[in-house]
């Protein structure tokens, strides 16, 4: 009997939860705010779905509701991607070690 591809995706999903579990426990508590902003940014990878939706079956300026929803989702996800990564970068720049100049 052939295995449904769904089972493979489910395996990826379950294993990723475990990876996430162990990786996140190793995050130092002082970086919990950047952790939230970076997880926010990466969850916007949902933009791949939005791009498919935006481009699906469109023929020359004749957009379906489905396309328009895709465009809207692209805009929202893009705000999140750029905003999320840049604000994380900005925060991480501030975490500095004590300067040994004494």
């Amino acid at each position: 009997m052939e295995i449904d591809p769904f089972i493979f995706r489910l395996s990826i999903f379950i294993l990723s939860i475990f990876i996430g579990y162990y990786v996140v426990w190793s995050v130092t508590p002082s970086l919990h705010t950047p952790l939230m902003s970076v997880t926010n940014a990466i969850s916007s990878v949902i933009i791949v779905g939005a791009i498919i939706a935006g481009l699906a079956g469109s023929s020359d300026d004749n957009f379906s509701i489905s396309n328009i929803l895709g465009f809207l989702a692209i805009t929202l996800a893009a705000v999140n991607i750029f905003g999320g990564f840049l604000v994380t970068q900005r925060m991480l720049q501030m975490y500095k070690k004590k300067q040994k100049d004494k």
Partner: protein
Amino acid sequence: MSANLSAIFYLISGVLFILALRGLSSPETSRQGNFFGILGMAIAITVTFLSIGSFSSGLTYVLIFLLIGGLIGAFIAYKIPMTAMPELVAGFHSLVGLSAVLVAISAFLNPEAFNLGSSGDIKLSSLIEMSIGAAVGAITFSGSIIAFLKLQGIMSGSPITFRGQHLFNALLLISIFILTYLLCSTQTPDYFWVLLAVSFLIGFLLIIPIGGADMPVVISMLNSYSGWAAAGIGFTLENSALIITGALVGSSGAILSYIMCKGMNRSFFNVILGGFGAIEQSSSSQNKEYRPVKNGNAEDAAFLMKNASSVIIVPGYGMAVAQAQHALREMVDTLKKNDIKVTYAIHPVAGRMPGHMNVLLAEANVPYDEVFELEEINNDFANADVAFVIGANDVTNPAAKNDPQSPIYGMPVLDVEKCKSVLFLKRSLSPGYAGIDNDLFYKENTLMLFADAKKMTEDITKNL
């Protein structure tokens, strides 16, 4: 690009996202981690474009909208003050939630484009995944909007409750399952729209009963939800990058919620069911007897600290409100010039989101190796001369250790009372969010400084 090749690239971006989180295990590797995250995102977006292949005129629009969103995002990221980080994160969560909903609707209306069958005859598994993604996305969206409004102060931070709330929420939750079942068995679009409407309503109702100071849990929880929504959509689109990311974000948010709940010694359900502040009001009004406090000014505080050899600073939400982090840092610089050892003690739930205080101190150029977590520093209070509590209250309350009647009994607190003297910088004697009195205020060795945190800190610096 063949489907297999693009699947491999999606897998690579998933791995890069794992590395991005891994990088956050220490501040040194964190910037590299963020770079991995950006790289992973760039790969995922590029591969999506390449796999679609046919470049119709829609592509121009896609790029334009990408650019518009990107510019808005970059502008916000550049402009936002660090004290507004909790609002920003809540706002961003709502965007993830809404895009998940939009993608799900789009896939529902045009299943052919996503290889999910045809309208009115969508594959059963896809329909279930889609419904889950859309429902969780909708809950994330409306919940985050409420959290945002509460954090921004547009909506009152106090819990809003009504009778039968829990029963009503439970019924709505059950109706989601029923609607999903009906949708799958009949393929009638109407059920999908009702499902979305109910989900939006649940998100709204779930967050309104939760008080302002429980926001660290709420934000972490919504963070988790946004991940599960992404994973749901990932299953629909059969995209491993989305599935991996969704699982990572989902478990990350769940762990943060757990850490925050533990920091308050409350169970997750206790927080979610809400109404903490509402219960406490009754107990605080009972014992309103007047007790004298020692009131001090900037000179007294400066005198105490100047004669100390070690000072521990305990920041709280009040510091964020008063934007006092820079003034605090200047005060600490002056203290250090006088050879006084200064460290910072951070309670897990200080502020409005996980790590809130750490970011503010980092913004004020406080080196992160002077900042300690509760377990690391709690034994040091006994040896310190002065504890300077700026804008914190409940996290120092000894009642959590010695008063089993207290609502916060059992919550881990900073052992501030063990210091030789305690300086409390607060705006007034009003109790903290839990609405309970802090015995520490009335102790012999406690000096209360009633003022705006920023102004008082500046005054102390002048007097040092």
